[in-house]
């Protein structure tokens, strides 16, 4: 069978790719895409630990579902913000969205 470590390393890779997306993409929507990757990496870990831990303890799956809800909320609000910013400032480039400075 697949050892636990494979899943964890896979998740770490996904997380790092997401991190790169979050840090390096200019487009705010693309940044949110990166965030999704990171959240998924976390979820893989949760599912893997559920499977490799005490299988009757559903905490891992419950947490993963909660993460789904959080991801949905994050996307909903995040994209709404991006659209709102786009309507006001006509840009979705993260570097140009720095109104919170003042």
């Amino acid at each position: 069978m697949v050892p636990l470590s494979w899943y964890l390393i896979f998740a770490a890779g996904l997380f790092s790719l997401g991190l790169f997306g979050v840090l390096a993409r200019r487009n705010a929507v693309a940044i949110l895409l990166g965030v999704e990757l990171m959240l998924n990496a976390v979820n893989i870990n949760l599912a893997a630990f559920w499977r490799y831990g005490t299988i009757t303890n559903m905490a891992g799956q419950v947490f993963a579902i909660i993460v789904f809800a959080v991801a949905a909320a994050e996307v909903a609000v995040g994209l709404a913000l991006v659209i709102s910013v786009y309507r006001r400032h006509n840009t979705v480039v993260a570097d140009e969205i720095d109104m919170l400075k003042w």
Partner: protein
Amino acid sequence: MTIAQIIFLVVAGATLGSAFMVVTSRNLIHAALWLVATLFGVAVQYALLNAGFLAVVQVVVYIGAIAILFIFAVMLTRKEIRDQGPQLNSSWWLSATLSVVTFGGLVGMLWGWKDMAHTVPDIPPGFDSISALGDALVSPDAFVLPFEVASILLLAALVGAVYVAFNRK
């Protein structure tokens, strides 16, 4: 190497490849579609982990809703789709370094961890994960509070998103 391992490696490779395309492709719709591929790969991983519910939910929520929402959002903020300018910001190399360091750090930490080679326990016969999940979510001595709080979170997200994006003032 067993079949499961081969499947895992193939799927993981495809998933990571798609994820790489997500963060690098210039066309945002393509990035979103690559995200779908990545998410589907993750769903397959859940299925490999016998977490069928998570796999299906992954498809329903992520591919069916979140990816759609992303595509809609890209269409609505469309000025940038065909942006010929760079899609990565100027300090992307620093980000890349940081990501690699993060990955290295995570793997490094995992390396020294004694439970790494943990073998997978058998699923006890008659164990129904959906039923157990239902128990965990709604029975009062488990996660009933997070269950209810999740609905409040979703409510807040809905109200907030609707208000933020489309306040007609």
